[in-house]
């Protein structure tokens, strides 16, 4: 009885959480913005990496700035004419001016977004591969496997990612091995520093992901494994066929958080020269001194990535939903 109440309570909680996230992300405007964002990215990347700049030369924007600048100056003209009442126009002019100033930087930032996306996706995917056995070791392992897994988790969660990046890049020969590999650093395959960052994010994210998965495994009622064993499945089979399929579904909300975290923390890879989104914005800013435009722009692009990730995870969650099982339920 107690267990059941708790379960249904948390399921109900989970539902509301999702519903709230959906409130924001389900708005048609958000969906539209995300669609436009990705359409632009895909065209940009195709142009830059695959078509060798045949639509627009690499680094040049698809959108002409002159008309937007003109609009901005017209608006501020109107604002000046209207005096005190021109305030809304001044705001609008500022906004349009911001857009005009931003457009020339977009192509280079798109390259940064590519690196950020690649870094995040690789980190989360490889991290997941390590995290599943790690979490199973934590929940079902013997003393030794349990403590090894615990030590790993504590180590990677207890030290700053910045320090992990530094040690892996500057203090181990990892980058030397990687740069000998074919294709590294050519075309859309980034150079060795990127792959070192992937290793760091993989190791780090595995620790965090394993915690999310572990608590999800713990929330699968014990009776499920007992029932699996009582029809003759071995412990490993029971975990594989009964506990994991449920536990991984429970893990989706926490795991989505980790994805969002990783998108944002990927900006730290700039520290070891990886030209991801933040580094790209920073590099342009230190050349042009347009700090305001570039950091706000970078912030917006990150936000777009994060919202895309939430939308994606909502969809995944809906897709794998099973009536009455934890997260999104009926």
């Amino acid at each position, binding site marked *: 009885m107690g267990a059941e109440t708790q379960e249904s309570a948390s399921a109900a909680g989970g539902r509301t959480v999702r519903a709230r996230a959906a409130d924001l992300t389900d708005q048609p405007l958000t969906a539209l913005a995300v669609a436009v964002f990705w359409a632009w990215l895909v065209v940009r990347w195709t142009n830059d990496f695959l078509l060798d700049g045949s639509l627009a030369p690499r680094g040049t924007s698809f959108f002409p700035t002159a008309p937007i600048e003109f609009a901005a100056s017209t608006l501020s003209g109107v604002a000046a004419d209207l005096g005190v009442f021109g305030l809304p126009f001044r705001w609008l002019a500022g906004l349009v001016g911001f857009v005009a100033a931003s457009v020339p930087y977009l192509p280079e930032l798109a390259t940064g977004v590519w690196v950020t996306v690649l870094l995040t996706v690789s980190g989360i995917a490889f991290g997941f591969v390590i995290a599943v056995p790690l979490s199973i070791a934590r929940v079902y392992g013997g003393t030794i496997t349990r403590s090894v897994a615990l030590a790993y988790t504590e180590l990677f969660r207890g030290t700053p990612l910045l320090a992990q990046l530094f040690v892996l890049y500057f203090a181990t020969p990892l980058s030397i091995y990687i740069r000998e590999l074919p294709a590294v650093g050519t075309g859309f395959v980034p150079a060795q520093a990127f792959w070192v960052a992937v290793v760091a994010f993989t190791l780090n994210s595995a620790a965090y992901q394993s915690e999310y998965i572990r608590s999800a495994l713990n929330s699968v009622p014990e009776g499920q494994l007992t029932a699996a064993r009582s029809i003759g499945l071995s412990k490993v089979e029971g975990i594989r066929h009964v506990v994991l399929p449920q536990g991984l579904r429970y893990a989706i909300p926490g795991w989505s958080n980790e994805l969002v975290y990783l998108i*944002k923390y990927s900006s730290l890879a700039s520290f070891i020269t990886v030209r991801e989104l933040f580094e790209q914005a920073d590099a342009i800013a230190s050349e042009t001194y347009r*700090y305001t435009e570039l*950091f706000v722009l970078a912030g917006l692009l990150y936000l777009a990535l994060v919202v895309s990730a939430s939308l994606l995870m909502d969809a995944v969650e809906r897709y794998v939903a099973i009536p009455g099982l934890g997260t999104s339920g009926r």
Partner: protein
Amino acid sequence: MHAFPLQSDWAFVLGSLDLLFEGLVVTVALTAASIALGFLLGFPAGAVEVYGRGPLASIVETAGVVLRGTPLLVIIIILFFVVSVSSSAFVTAAVALGLRSGAYQSQIFRGALQSVDEGQLEAARSVGMGRLQAIRHVVVPQALRRSVPGFQNEFTIVLKDTSIAIVIGLGELLTVGQNLYQGGQSTAALEIFLTVSLIYFVLTFTTNRTLDYVDDHFTIPGGEQA
């Protein structure tokens, strides 16, 4: 392969422990200030998300999404160079970390508030308590206990993320470490990074254990659910 490029210089690190300690004090102070600010913002924000409605709730939700969606690095840079909240790097870093932590703490508290069974609120109402009273005396005490693990996580994250304040030159632990090997006296970068990592590790480990203890102490005997 090249010879291991970093020269070993532990003596230099040992001789600089007093400087690292000064950095540590800044790190700890920054963590405390950010967590406190985050709590002051995050707890009411979480409550608003659960029980609030209307424009206030949507403003809080949107602000949370933006703050959670932007890298801390970008938030710090914007607050320092674009908005310029303060000329003090410490205050700026504390505001940036505090705002972001508030956005995350609001989610921790929201989850905890929602995980308290609906029946608890009903039972409180049916002895004649008002809505606020019932939330205050029945839901919040249980929710706060349940938010300890999430809070523990958040604490660890903030502690480590203080290192990002290096971009605005705040003399916290990692900055002090960087300055040490960039001072021209020694290039013991690896040693310094390992030492700094160890200090962070000890900090996170001990705070987590302490919070575990606090958690145990406040746990309701026999389990959480009636």
